[in-house]
């Protein structure tokens, strides 16, 4: 048996979080250090996941399998493949940064704050590592609780509305998924997700299950038109909450599509792919325009996230159009890989941008673009980093933001040149909304006394943003290792996607 690495990655932060809670707010400094220690150890522990990963197989690795609730054949069944492993790494990496970012800023109940993030980290790792559908569902729903608390306790003035909206939206979506999972269990007699892949389903069943999954995942991604919870949640969430929300939680929707929808309901996916494609393209174009006119920086980045996630779902569902148009699958894998890379990259870039807004917010307590102007005069180092992340957000080659969009656009041309045409509008729209914000916030004369009194980022903030900048750059200049990890899994997924269950 493998050293139970995945269990460690789930339970170490959860119990670590409880330990931080036990240290308590009275000993705030200690609780911070404990939280940092736990997050760093978790990250270090996750590195062997990448280093020891077998890049030649699509099989699950680092598997742990024990019976849990035997009456319903629910198992404690963990494992990762090329799709989930990078997402776990992203989670452990970003959590460290979030802990550092909250170091001084969180004055109110700091230990509870850090504890919530650590517990959430464990639960999110659980979502990505679960191979048992019920275990997955437990983590999936449990994860909402710390996020609910984070926004509800440390959030802004309208946090109650935002949390309720967030909770109801995602919860309602997930309930349908639960029904679908139970149905699948009744038929197949197992909760193992991989058993669902081989379980034959009729078209009607597939369509219903597909729609149930779609509802759950579309809310999480979020896809148009169930996206309106995201801007509100982001605006009210504290910086760390926004970072986790954008970097990790949105990815669960995308992950759901590749783990559940495509392989479990291939025929329904094939016949309903137009729905996802249309919604994805709407996300790219419609939301691109909406992002343009936002006056709140966080809202702008939130809308930009929706547009970027449109590329993820677009890339995932391109394969069927390619199959119909060309009769082959060449290019479908590129779409899937592009979507996956886009998820990782978006985690880094949007996380970094939310941190940038956080840096400004900590100083002037405003997210309003109009409250700034000429920040580069007083915060040159910050300005350089913010412009860099803005460029990454606009998909500049050499940054990670480019890789996913590039692959998806290349692949979508094979599916239909018009898909590529609409998707590529992001080149113009993404540049316009991101750089227009940069122009109004970073450049120009010092706009007011507030900006005149700004102090540049300190070592702690510089560390967080600097590390992210390096990651964005490395992934942009050399995405080969990431693509290599995903390759076999994506190929296997393609097989499952086109193997009819009828």
């Amino acid at each position, binding site marked *: 048996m493998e050293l139970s690495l995945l269990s460690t990655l789930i339970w170490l932060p959860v119990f670590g979080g409880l330990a931080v809670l036990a240290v308590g707010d009275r000993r705030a400094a200690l609780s911070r250090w404990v939280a940092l220690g736990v997050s760093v150890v978790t990250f270090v522990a996750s590195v062997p996941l990448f280093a020891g990963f077998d890049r030649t197989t699509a099989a699950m690795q680092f598997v742990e399998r024990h019976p849990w609730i035997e009456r319903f054949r629910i198992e404690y069944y963990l494992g990762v493949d090329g799709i989930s492993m990078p997402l776990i790494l992203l989670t452990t990496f970003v959590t460290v940064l979030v802990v550092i970012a909250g170091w001084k800023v969180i004055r109110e109940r700091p230990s509870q704050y850090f504890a919530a993030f650590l517990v959430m980290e464990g639960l999110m790792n659980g979502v990505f590592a679960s191979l048992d559908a019920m275990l997955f569902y437990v983590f999936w729903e449990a994860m909402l609780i710390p996020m609910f608390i984070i926004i509800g306790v440390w959030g802004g003035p309208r946090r109650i509305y935002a949390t309720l909206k967030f909770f109801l939206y995602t919860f309602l979506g997930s309930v349908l998924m639960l029904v679908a999972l139970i149905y699948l269990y009744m038929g197949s007699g197992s909760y193992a997700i991989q058993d669902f892949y081989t379980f034959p389903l009729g078209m009607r069943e597939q369509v219903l299950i597909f729609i149930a999954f779609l509802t759950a995942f579309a809310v999480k991604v979020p896809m148009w038109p169930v996206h309106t919870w995201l801007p509100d949640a982001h605006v009210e969430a504290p910086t760390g909450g926004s970072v986790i929300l954008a970097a990790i939680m949105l990815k669960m929707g995308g992950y759901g599509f590749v783990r559940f929808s495509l392989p479990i309901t291939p025929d329904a996916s094939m016949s309903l792919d137009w729905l996802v494609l249309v919604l994805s393209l709407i996300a790219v174009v419609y939301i691109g325009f909406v992002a*343009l*006119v936002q006056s709140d920086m966080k809202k702008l980045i939130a809308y930009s996230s929706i547009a970027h996630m449109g590329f993820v779902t677009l890339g995932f569902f391109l394969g069927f159009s390619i199959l119909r148009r060309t009769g082959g699958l060449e290019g479908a894998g*590129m779409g899937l890989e592009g979507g996956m890379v886009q998820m990782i990259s978006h985690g880094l870039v949007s996380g970094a941008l939310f941190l940038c807004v956080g840096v400004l917010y900590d100083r002037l307590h405003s997210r309003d673009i109009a409250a700034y102007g000429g920040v580069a005069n007083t915060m040159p180092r910050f300005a350089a980093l913010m412009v860099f992340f803005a460029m990454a957000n606009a998909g500049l080659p050499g940054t990670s933001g480019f890789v996913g969009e590039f692959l998806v656009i*290349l*692949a979508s041309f094979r599916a239909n040149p018009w898909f590529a045409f609409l998707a590529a509008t992001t080149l113009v729209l993404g540049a316009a909304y991101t750089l227009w914000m940069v122009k109004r916030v970073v450049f*120009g004369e010092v706009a007011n006394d507030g900006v005149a009194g700004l102090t540049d980022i300190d070592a702690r903030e510089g560390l967080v943003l600097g590390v992210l900048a390096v990651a964005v750059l490395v992934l942009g200049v050399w995405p080969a290792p990431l693509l290599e990890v995903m390759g076999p899994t994506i190929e296997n997924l393609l097989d499952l996607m086109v193997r009819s269950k009828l």
Partner: protein
Amino acid sequence: MMEQVLLAIVLSPLAAAVIAGLFGRVIGRAGAHWITILGVGASFLLSAWVLAGLLGGRLEPYDGAVYTWGISDGVRMEVGFLIDRLSALMMTVVTFVSLMVHVYTVGYMREDPGYQRFFSYISLFTFAMLMLVMANNFLQLFFGWEAVGVVSYLLIGFWFKRPTAIHANLKAFVVNRVGDFGFLLGIAAILSLAGSLDYAEVFASAPSWSRQTVEVLAGRPWDAATLVCVLLFVGAMGKSAQVPLHVWLPDSMEGPTPISALIHAATMVTAGVFMVARMSPLFELSTTALSVVLVIGATTAFFMGLLGLVQNDIKRVVAYSTLSQLGYMMVALGASAYAAGIFHLGTHAFFKALLFLAAGSVIIAMHHEQDIRKMGGLRRYMPVTYWTALIGSLALIGFPGFSGFFSKDAIIEAVHASAIPGARYAYLCVLLGVFVTALYTFRMFFMVFHGKERMDEHTRSHLKESPWVVTLPLVLLAIPSVVAGWMTEQALLFDGYFGSSIHVSESHDVLSTVGEHGTAPSAFLVHGLSGYPFFIAMAGLATAWLLYLRRPDMLPQATARLRGIIRLLANKYYFDDLNEKVIAPGARGLGKGLWKLGDEILIDGLVVNGSARMVGWLAGVVRQVQTGYLYHYAFAMIIGLALMLGWLLMKG
């Protein structure tokens, strides 16, 4: 060996840029300019060595990968170099001009607080431009393409406190992105047709897929080669500022003058020209695409030149001239005279960089006054600038013997010989363009250096020649502006210099027709002295002399008659108005509409909060029933019982 040299060529400016950018405060101002000058200098020497090696046969053309960027779906994407005579020539031109600009910047930016940052940017630019011209695949081409765009963005907005500068850089980036949008689609089309992003593989397989059709609109199939080339050309239109994507280039003059010379005249804006020439094996497969290139180029060449006539900002005159000259290069490409296009790219790089730097020298002397109406008579104060600017101006108008003469004459003759659709229109445009070029060039030249001294007393008392770091690059650029044509004309145009790096199909081979009246420079000169272009240029020069020097009193009369046209020109054909009063507000309005109507009213208002309200309302209704009075409940029970009994009875 070759690979190490090539890596050194691209990495030394990059390393210098990183050091100057990150450690600018540590190494100081002198440290920043020395390290970047050394980096670019090394790059130039090695590029020249490679070029010489290729010419002398000591080196073989090189096509190889540096590393694998990624493999997706079986497509191997690499970073690699293709070094043949075309790219080696470009590398040498780019690094030479860049080196000159680096030296010049030492003088021009002397008092600027962002000194180190500036050197970091221009070195970074050199790196990006080299990556672009040295690429052996479309991925890297696109990387370089966008990277030069970003550095251009940073440099136009270098003085980021100026509202005009940060408006101009945003505009430049977004307009370029419109071009890149087409460019990326072109690359996507290539991948889907050829299954590879590698130049060599794509060119080799092109004849086999070029006749396929792609159904863009239902029932309207496009020839694959035409689709690919037109999409790629949209990218070139953005980067090389062709109508209607030209609007960003004049505004880019908000950046410091050295970068106007380097990026917005000599190198980056010619990337589109280079790209089309590099893609000649593809463009040769589609006469339609060539016609598009020809017509767009000709339109830019003539109509943008006209705009130069009404500008009063010295840099903007030169900027419109650049637009027009880029149009000439595009015309050459459209006529399949790729060699002539690249030839003009090279000569233009020298004389236009020279003119920009001379303009910068004037601007330094004038204490950053750029209005030519406030200049005049500077000849007496700035002899070196005067003579070098004269050389640049003569080269620009194509005065016989100067470098611009050879390249421009070759283009005009090539268009004359071309038979593809649009060639006649293009010929007319380039001929008329010669008159316009001579007129605006010498209008500026006379207004700056001759005539009455119109500046204020304070400025006049401080007028003096610029320091040697400024004038030395002027002199060094003036030399090739004179001799580059003589030295390279025959080799570049007729003796197959480019070899296999440029492909021209036999039916399009206009340059051999041009060469019929002799290929040697002397023959060119003799032929040129008796051709239309020469007389047209002289007419333009004479008109400028008459209107701006000899009889300025005639000017109001002349302009009064042309009031309508002048208003059209002064408003730049209303392109800016279209963009800033229709397109930009339209996009914002659409965004606002979608947001308010779609997100807030329909989705949130009606569906989300609406269903919440619905639940609330329902709860309210149900609450009414629970009154708390016992007799209400008893009454409801009796009614219910009665209904149930009735139902059972009916059923029974």
